[in-house]
C-alpha cells in the first residue's frame, strides 16, 4: 500500500483543478530551472513558500520529504566550493574557496528547494489515480503516464519497506556501530529493500490488473470549475511573468 500523505486535505490548493496544478507546476519548474539571477531565485523561493502556506501541509512531513535533497545539497556544498575553478574568494585552512563555486552552490540549492517545494504543494497534493487521470487528459502517451506514476509510487513503496526492515532489525536489538556486523547488516537491509520493494510493487500492480486496470486512470473526483481556478491561474501567470521580467533585468549570479 502506498502512502500519499499529502493527498488527503482540503486546503485551497487541494481544491484547485488538478490539470491546472500540473501545468502550473511544470511551467514554474521550467522557468525556475532556467533562471540564473539571484533576485529571481529568491523570489521563486518566496512564491514556493507562499504556495506551501496555502496547501496547509504538515510541515514536519514536508521536511522529512526534504531530507534526501538536503543530503545531496550538503554534498555539493562540501565539494564544489573548493573544486570549482575560478577567482579565489578566501582560504579555509588548506582549501582555496572560489567565488563561482560558492555561488554555483547557492544557485543549485535555491533552485532545487524552490522547485521541490512547488512540486510537493501542487502535485503531490493529488492522489496517484488523479494525477494519472490528469496526465491522460493532457494527452501524454499512456506508456509515459504509466511510467511516471509507477516511478512515483515505487518511491513510497521503497520508503515503506525500509521502515519495516529497520523495525525488524531494531526489535531484535540491532544498534548501528562502526563494525563489520553493522556493515553486513546494512548491506543485507539494502539488498532486501530493493528485492522486497520490487516484489511488493509487482503484487500491487497485479492487484490493479485484477481489477481491470489496463493503463488508463480514471478518477472519482470531479474536477472543480470554480472561480478559485481562475484566480490561481491569473496569479500564477503573473508570477511567472514577473519572474521572467526579473530574470531578464537582473544579472546572473554567475557570469
Amino acid at each position, binding site marked *: *500500500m*502506498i*502512502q*500519499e500523505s499529502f*493527498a*488527503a486535505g482540503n486546503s485551497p490548493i487541494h481544491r484547485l483543478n488538478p490539470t491546472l496544478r500540473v501545468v502550473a507546476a511544470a511551467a514554474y519548474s521550467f522557468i525556475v530551472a532556467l533562471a540564473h539571477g539571484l533576485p529571481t531565485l529568491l523570489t521563486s523561493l518566496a512564491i514556493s513558500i507562499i504556495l506551501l502556506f496555502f496547501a496547509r501541509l504538515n510541515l514536519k512531513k514536508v521536511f522529512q520529504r526534504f531530507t534526501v535533497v538536503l543530503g545531496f545539497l550538503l554534498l555539493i556544498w562540501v565539494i564544489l566550493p573548493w573544486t570549482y575553478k575560478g577567482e579565489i574568494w578566501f582560504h579555509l585552512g588548506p582549501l582555496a574557496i572560489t567565488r563561482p563555486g560558492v555561488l554555483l552552490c547557492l544557485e543549485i540549492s535555491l533552485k532545487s528547494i524552490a522547485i521541490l517545494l512547488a512540486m510537493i504543494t501542487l502535485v503531490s497534493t493529488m*492522489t*496517484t*489515480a488523479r494525477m494519472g487521470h490528469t496526465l491522460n487528459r493532457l494527452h501524454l502517451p499512456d506508456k509515459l503516464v504509466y511510467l511516471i506514476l509507477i516511478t512515483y*509510487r515505487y518511491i513510497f513503496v521503497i520508503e515503506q519497506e525500509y521502515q519495516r526492515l529497520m523495525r525488524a532489525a531494531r526489535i531484535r536489538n540491532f544498534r548501528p556501530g562502526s563494525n563489520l556486523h553493522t556493515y553486513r547488516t546494512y548491506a543485507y537491509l539494502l539488498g532486501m529493500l530493493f528485492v522486497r520493494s520490487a516484489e*511488493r510493487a509487482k*503484487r*500491487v500492480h*497485479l*492487484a*490493479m*490488473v*485484477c*481489477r*481491470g*486496470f*489496463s493503463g*488508463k486512470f*480514471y*478518477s*472519482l*473526483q*470531479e474536477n472543480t470549475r470554480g472561480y478559485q481556478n481562475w484566480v490561481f491561474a491569473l496569479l500564477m501567470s503573473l508570477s511567472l511573468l514577473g519572474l521572467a521580467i526579473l530574470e531578464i533585468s537582473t544579472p546572473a549570479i554567475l557570469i
Partner: protein
Amino acid sequence: MPDIPLFTLTNLNFNYPGREPVIKNLQLQFYPGERIGLVAPNGSGKTTLFHLIMGLLKPTSGSIEFLGRPAVSEEDFAAVRQKIGLLFQDADDQLFSPTVIEDVAFGPLNLGCSREEAREISLKTLEFLGLSDFADRVTFKLSGGEKKLVSLATVLAMKPEVLLLDEPTAGLDRKTKTRLIEILNGLELSYIIISHEFDFLKEIAHHIYTMEDGKITLDEELYIHHHEHAHRVGAQPHKHI
C-alpha cells in the same frame, strides 16, 4: 448442477523459475454454485493456484478454460478477471488509493462505469459490508482487519460471479469473522476460499478440499467431519466426487 463448468483446469503444471514444481498435473472443474473451502499446509501452492487461475502467473504446461473457452492471452484473462474476483492474501497489496471510496471505485471505473455509477456502486458495496462510515477514511490508516474488509469491498464492487478469497479470516476477530460468514452466506456467488480455520470453512463451504503434492484432493477426513454438520448445507445441492 448446470453442465458447463465456470472454469476447468487440465493437467496444470507450474514451478517458479529454478524451483521444484509447486503445481503438478492439477485437475479442477469448478461449477456455478460451488462453494469450496481449501485447507492445506503453508507453502503447498494455494496462493500460486489462485494466481494461475487469474492469469497472473503462466502455467508451464496444461490448460485453463473459462466457460468452455481456453484462456491463453492477456485479453482472454482480462475478460476472466471481470468475472472472477481475487482477494489477495495481503490486504496491503490490494489497497493503494488514499481513500477507501476511491479504492473501491477503482474497479468499476476501469470497467467503464461513469463517475456517478462508480460512486453509487462503491457506496452500496460499503453499505452491504457495513462499512459505510469508512468511505472517506484513509486506507493506510485502517487496522489490519478493516483493511481486509475494505479489500473485500474492492473485489465485490466489480460484481464478480466467482470469488477467490485468499485467507480472508487472517487477523479478524470473532465478531468480524461471524459477520464475514453472514456476508458470504448472503451472497449468491460461487467461491473458493483458502483458510486455515476449519470452524470458519464449515460454516460457508459445501466441500473442503486440500492440496497435496501439487494436486487438489477432497479432504476425506475433513469431509467426514463436514458431514456431521450436513444439516447446515442440507438445502444446497450435494455432490460427491
